[in-house]
């Protein structure tokens, strides 16, 4: 008889395409990998609210302000879906927040770049959310049930984010020369960081092989990046934006674009804390977490008061 609490049995279930649920046996490495990946994903959603939040009061119209507010509310919601999924693995919300604030847990380094002007809001929606969607669509089929269900929910909501960004870029490209230059400038600054969002090449990716074996990741970093490149270049060309890379070529045989080598030194520099906004993003999170402590304490006190009342009348 097989042992249901063995790694071999676990791998058999994975190979059979089964989903793993919170109370099922899982190897410690699987649990650890998931906690790291899901919490990093959750932190990215929450920290990602900051560069856009910066533009709510300066959105150029009421329409764009409403849209931006709704988008940022979604990002907060996505963070919460993901924190919930991570918590099913036995880690508490307080621990997750502590790991973020101490710098132990990472978030997507793209959010360490500033949103300098309104065109950046377009570029973030189109390129950053666009890259995130490619990754998230693939993760809908991840092997861990709660993560997969969260991804399905997120993907339903995320496509509006990308479309609103592309709409901003398309509008600016139909505007004055100055607006066109702004859109191109945002494209130039966000293109490479967006490509880096998929992580290092498969050959240099420390966690990739286990993640693929356990079907946490269903496609590799390079496969996902290529999908994004192939989708995005024609979208840029359609509205007259130039991709900031002189070596782009379409391989007619494969249908894939080839690009220049990515500047990985910059990627590692930003990941290790030396991007333009790393300190600002964490300081902001810590400040509002601490300033909100009294709200959590008051809610807890209110609960205790009512529990006491219920006991007295029972």
């Amino acid at each position, binding site marked *: 008889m097989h042992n*249901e609490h063995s790694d071999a049995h676990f791998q058999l279930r994975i190979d059979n395409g089964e989903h793993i649920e919170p*109370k099922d046996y899982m190897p410690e490495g699987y649990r650890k990998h998931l906690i790291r990946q899901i919490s990093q994903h959750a932190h990215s959603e929450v920290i990602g609210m900051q560069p856009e939040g910066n533009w709510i009061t300066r959105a150029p119209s009421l329409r764009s302000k409403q849209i931006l507010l709704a988008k940022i*509310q979604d990002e907060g919601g996505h963070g919460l879906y993901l924190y*919930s999924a991570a918590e099913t693995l036995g880690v508490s919300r*307080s621990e997750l927040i502590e790991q973020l604030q101490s710098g132990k847990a990472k978030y997507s380094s793209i959010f360490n770049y500033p949103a300098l002007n309104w065109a950046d809001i377009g570029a973030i929606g189109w390129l950053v959310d666009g890259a995130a969607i490619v990754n998230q669509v693939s993760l809908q089929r991840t092997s861990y049930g709660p993560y997969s269900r969260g991804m399905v929910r997120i993907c339903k909501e995320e496509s509006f984010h990308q479309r609103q960004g592309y709409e901003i870029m398309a509008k600016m490209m139909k505007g004055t020369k100055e607006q066109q230059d702004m859109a191109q400038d945002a494209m130039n600054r966000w293109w490479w960081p967006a490509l880096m969002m998929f992580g290092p090449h498969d050959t240099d990716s420390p966690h990739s092989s286990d993640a693929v074996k356990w079907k946490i990741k269903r496609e590799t970093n390079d496969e996902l990046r290529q999908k994004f490149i192939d989708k995005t270049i024609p979208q840029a060309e359609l509205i007259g934006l130039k991709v900031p890379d002189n070596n782009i070529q379409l391989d007619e045989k494969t249908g894939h674009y080839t690009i220049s080598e990515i500047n990985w030194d910059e990627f590692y520099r930003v990941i290790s804390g030396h991007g333009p906004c790393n300190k600002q993003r964490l300081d902001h999170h810590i400040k509002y977490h601490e300033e909100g402590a009294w709200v*959590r304490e008051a*809610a807890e006190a*209110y609960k205790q008061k009512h529990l006491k009342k219920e006991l007295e009348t029972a």
Partner: protein
Amino acid sequence: MATDTQLDLWEVFIQSKSGLPYIHAGSIHASDVKMAMQNARDIYTRRGEGTSIWVVPSKHISASNPDDNDMLFDPSNDKVYRHPTFYVMPEGAKNI
């Protein structure tokens, strides 16, 4: 800091329209039922996903143990008489 807390964990169930079953949507944090309801609404039904919400403190949910699955969910294939195809109907019987 005194007693910082992330509040209690609750499970959220949503009925997408009347007549359909309530389906688990995910979880939220809240200190009491009123906050739980508000948070569930804000987090899980921003786009008309539901017409009714249940919130339940997670600690009040008992879940079966996966180790008991063989015993609990045995398909009882030996009890063929549980299936309609087990019964022999007279030749010519209709609508049954």
